[in-house]
């Protein structure tokens, strides 16, 4: 087991420069280059001396290295201070934002992944026949329409015209949020079916042409058992690792869905931070998603060894 431990520790040590790199990139993007938000904070009647005082308080006059160190510190402590636009504590904003985002993205992600795997297996099973062609063509066609169009059309028809879903808004608590997130989930699933099915289909097809499938046939196994027992079990390795890598992005939620359905998740928070040039929030969002991405790449490595017996952590 200590082999794995060494590996994990080495990977963690490797991730530190990446984290420092991310902080540096964020530092460049937001501190050095970003426009001066102070005027915006002072409302309609800022006075000249008030601007100087505010710059001082926000720490904008600190030396650049000091500002960079603040970012790095916040990457580890997750204490991002207060938002400039709303003066709220950013970490509490995250807590409030995370729940709605996750209630939307987690169910949507798992429904989308499961259904696209099922479809991909069907398509691979009937490869070359009518079903395969039909599903592939619809996938490409569905991918060719912009996500914004789906949102507009679905919201107008499904929510307003036929009243099947709530138009917008959000309520915390178990049964209530379902009414509000069901339409966005439906849209997310429709949007991700296309690319996912195509991707999983290629993964499964790669496995079908391997030698062990021929051996399985020579053992007299039926096409169905070969597909579900042998091929799918092998194809699950890339599928699982691919899914794990996508998990950190669920935290960010879907910017468009949240802002159109006014779900107060992290995505919606990002958009209002963008419109209000609220840099502490934008920085915080970038750091959190970057840290999540880094951690999940590590988890992906570990999952890879669990799923694929061939890989020893070396």
């Amino acid at each position: 087991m200590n082999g794995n431990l060494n590996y994990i520790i080495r990977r963690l040590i490797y991730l530190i420069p990446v984290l420092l790199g991310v902080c540096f990139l964020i530092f460049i993007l937001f501190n050095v280059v970003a426009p001066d938000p102070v005027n915006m904070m002072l409302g309609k009647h800022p006075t000249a001396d008030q601007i100087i005082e505010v710059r001082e308080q926000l720490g904008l006059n600190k030396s650049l290295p000091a500002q960079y160190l603040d970012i790095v510190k916040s990457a580890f402590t997750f204490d991002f201070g207060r938002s400039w636009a709303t003066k709220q504590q950013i970490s509490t904003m995250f807590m409030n934002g995370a729940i709605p985002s996750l209630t939307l993205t987690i169910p949507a992600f798992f429904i989308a992944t499961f259904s696209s795997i099922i479809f991909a297996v069907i398509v691979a099973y009937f490869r070359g026949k009518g079903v395969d062609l039909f599903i592939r063509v619809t996938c490409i066609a569905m991918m060719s329409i912009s996500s914004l169009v789906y949102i507009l059309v679905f919201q107008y028809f499904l929510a307003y015209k036929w009243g099947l879903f709530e138009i917008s808004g959000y309520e915390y608590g178990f049964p209530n949020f379902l009414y509000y997130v069901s339409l966005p989930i439906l849209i997310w699933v429709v949007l991700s079916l296309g690319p996912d099915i195509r991707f999983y289909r290629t993964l499964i097809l790669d496995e079908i042409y391997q030698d062990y499938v021929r051996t399985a046939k020579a053992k007299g196994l039926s096409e169905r058992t070969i597909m579900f027992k042998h091929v799918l079990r092998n194809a699950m390795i890339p599928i699982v690792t691919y899914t794990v890598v996508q998990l950190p992005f669920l935290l960010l939620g879907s910017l468009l869905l949240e802002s159109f359905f006014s779900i107060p998740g992290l995505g919606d928070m990002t958009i209002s931070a963008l419109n209000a040039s609220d840099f502490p929030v934008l920085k915080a969002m970038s750091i959190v998603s970057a840290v999540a991405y880094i951690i999940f790449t590590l988890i992906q490595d570990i999952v890879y060894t669990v799923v694929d017996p061939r890989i020893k952590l070396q």
Partner: protein
Amino acid sequence: MFKFGLSIVLATAFMTIGCTKKKNYDEKVLLRNVKAKIKGLDPVNAGDTYSSREISRIYEGLLEYHYLKRPYTLQPNLAESMPVVSDDGLTYTFKIKKGILFQDNKCFPEGKGRELKASDFVYSIKRMADTRNISTGWWLLDDKVEGLNAWRDKYSGKAANYSDEIAGIKALDDYTLQFKLTTKYPQFLYSLAMVYTFAVPYEAVAMYGEEFLNNPVGTGAFMTETYKQSNKIVYVKNPNYRDVFYPSEGAPGDKERGLLKDAGKKLPLVDKIVVNIVPESSPRFLSFENGDVDFSEIPKDNFESSVTPSKEVTEAFKAKGIELEIVPDLDITYIAFNHDDPLFKNNLKLRQAMSLAYDVGRSNELFQNDRAVEAQTIIPPGIGGYDKDFVNEFAKYDLKKAKALLAEAGYPGGKGLPTIVYDTLATTLYRQSSEFFKKCMNDIGVNIEVRQNTWPQLVDKTKKRKAQMFGMAWLGDYPDAENFLQLLYGPNAAPGPNGSNYNNAEFNKEFEAAKVMQPGPERAARYAALAQKVAMDVPLIINLHRTTYILKHSWLRNHKFSSFEHGNSQYYAVDMDAKEKTIKSGVLRMNHKKATAKVD
């Protein structure tokens, strides 16, 4: 494996097939949607109109605007009566009503709300001056109250000592409060009706510290039950609220419109208020049509289906029991020239030509559905200084004259004139209006390059004088034309509110003289003359005074729109049985054709 996966997909898919939430009608609830997120509930940094509206449900100030009387008149709220003003107009003395309690909160001993005292106001106004609070309202009293600026500078950037006495604000005893001003400042009374100067208990600030903005403790009619700053706020009645009754008289015509039916009743008239935050305009209006909210403004693109050209509710909406309320706003929109740019500064003819080339009527039609009033001067209707008969010869649309003037300005047909950069916001409405402006200017050969910005970027550009031309709107802070004329006052140049950096010595002198006059017809005439004279100099392309159109459902009572909506929600009432009947009848769900058919 296959069966397991399939069952999971079907289960979750079935769960989200969707159903609308069931509605309950027993509790009297006022439902409304709001466009922008509430920044926080701390009076000192109210910032925008949306936050001030929410804050004023919880906190109260010395004065307030009468709910029904128009034009807007001040009346005492926490003060017993209007202040006694010294002859030199510098000393104001107030008497505070006795027995006013703060709402119960754990910051008070045994959680019981204590009585409001004069010293609370001294504390609250000092809080506004404290640099660490970065108050957006500080401009109101900057250099206006004796000793306040000194106190502010003394503790700038440090923890302020609030017991440090200053001459300008003193609590003579528990119920008398005295202000000493440094200069004559008639607008001072208005500032006491604004959110920044509302009373705040020091115990709450001490206990909650930086989180005070999320834990409001006020003397107002309501208090917060749940507060999700970016999603929804739910208010409930404040049990400690003193006896306040619905006014028995109002503006002419209010009685006929049934606005005095609940006269004398104890306020507030609803048990609960639910405020949902819905940024996108189309879902906001669709939820109104569904009956999820009690009243709503009308987005530009839903106007045709709601209001007839003759400014009445369409047949379909009438069938649904929806009423319309039209109220002019204290508001002006304009397109500013940056007078730092020599191109505009000393070329009056060019400014006049561009002003004449701008088709204000068409812009009103396209973007305001003809709801707004074409502005003649910078002073909006509804306050002293507005003269409805005055016609600004440069505010009308005259292409021929515009071309002639442009030639006189030295750029016949626009030749020789460099491309002018017009900065606007990135939202769809502003992008479309800037395209319209570009088209109008192209008609006389002036080439415009449109640049999109987020709101902070635009503000940043105007404050740093880097924007050549830009569209801007100004909503009155208080019903006094001074608040509008100061937009052209030289010393107010950027980063102050005078974004055009217009500086006309003669106008500055006359403005300084007029603004210190006591409110009255003489001051109004002075303001009118001043505004009309400066309009001839076309400091900016004057555009529109927008009017507010509010659609109300049949079950909403006593609603009268006011530009200063502080604490008005306590006057609204909701007839829950009427609401239940209308919603259950499904008339709201019917589309327009069927609804009208139902009426005939």
